[in-house]
């Protein structure tokens, strides 16, 4: 198992090395490997598909053109997720200042989500809107920490590495975010 992890790390290190030298196929492999997680984080932070794709594009460009600054002390994924998170939060701030910059269409599903009890079915888009409204009440730091925890199921240690804060701070943020989300969610629309 350890050997497999080491192999994975080595091959990623080699990819990063090639990508740093401008090798497009190495960049492409890194893109394919990490685009999914990057997108999920960006989507949860922004609640909009096109914005999330734009953020992934920006973050990948920043990562590939800034690879000289990547010292390898953390994994490439950690470093990339840090860039994705920061880019998404910046994007969100600029969007709030300039609401017209939101472009593209949201292709959120209209399929009904059915709870255990069929009488309590709620439209998926409505569920997303309820959750997005609650997420919008979190500060950027609480939101990004909670998204890494809940969406990517990262450990406290991994999140601490991405956000460059102590593990205790991560725990405190997750606690605060969950308490806050549970207190502001529109339960009447969910139950």
């Amino acid at each position, binding site marked *: 198992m350890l050997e497999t992890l080491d192999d994975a790390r080595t091959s990623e290190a080699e990819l990063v090395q090639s990508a740093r030298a401008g090798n*497009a196929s190495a*960049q492409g492999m890194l*893109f394919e490997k990490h*685009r999914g997680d990057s*997108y*999920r984080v960006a*989507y*949860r932070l922004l609640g909009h*598909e096109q914005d999330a*794709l734009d953020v992934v*594009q*920006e973050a*990948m*460009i*920043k990562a*590939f*053109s800034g690879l000289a*600054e990547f010292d390898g002390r953390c994994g490439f994924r950690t470093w990339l997720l*840090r*860039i994705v*998170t*920061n*880019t998404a*939060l*910046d994007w969100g*701030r600029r969007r*709030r200042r300039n609401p017209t910059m939101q472009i593209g269409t949201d*292709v959120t*599903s209209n399929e009904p*989500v059915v*709870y255990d009890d069929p009488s309590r079915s709620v439209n*998926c888009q409505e*569920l*997303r809107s309820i*959750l997005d409204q609650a997420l*919008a009440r*979190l*500060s*950027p*730091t609480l939101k990004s920490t909670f998204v890494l925890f*809940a*969406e990517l*199921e990262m450990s406290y240690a991994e999140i601490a590495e991405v*956000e*460059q804060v102590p593990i205790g701070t991560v*725990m*405190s943020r*997750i*606690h*605060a975010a*969950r*308490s*806050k*989300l*549970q*207190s*502001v*969610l529109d*339960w009447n629309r*969910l139950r």
Partner: protein
Amino acid sequence: MRCSEVIQELITSQGGRDDAVVAHLTTCASCRRFADDSELLDRVWTQTRPVSPSLDSWAQVWDGIQSRLASGIESHHPTVLAMPATHKASSRFRRLGLLALAQAAAVLFVVQIGWHFIPGPGRDAAQKTQLAGVSQPRSEASPIEIDEGPIVVISFAGDAREVVAADTDSASGVDDGFVLFNEIESLVTTPVVAYQE
């Protein structure tokens, strides 16, 4: 097991529940309620997982990356990679938070006077316990219900006033100041007042 320990366990566990927690939940309605809300939040989270973009969308993103890298345009909006933007943001929010608190200090006097002019019975009713963090939009004429003791953050959006946070959660072990500060952070565009009865 104390309620605060149970809540901590419910929040931080990424898997099942241990026997002590389960036993506590059968006897404590308040923690049971928190656990139910927690389960529902998890379910909503799972059911709203983002759908992966189409391969065409990814191809477009990749083309965009390639062409921008080839043309040497690093980014439309350069940011410093070594320093997380959240640091930058937090110092800005800290300044705004301080601004909001300064604003609060200025308005506090007025709110206090207004509070003491609320008629007796209405005021008694108003001091009834109000769950921290639950949004309760109020019309301009009705009193805002707050507890004695905790610091509450009241937002003023148009004519509506609402209690948006209170540091009543000390039993749960969260740093209340941290939670309150985050509240103020997320309300930078809304006038707020921090108030203690």
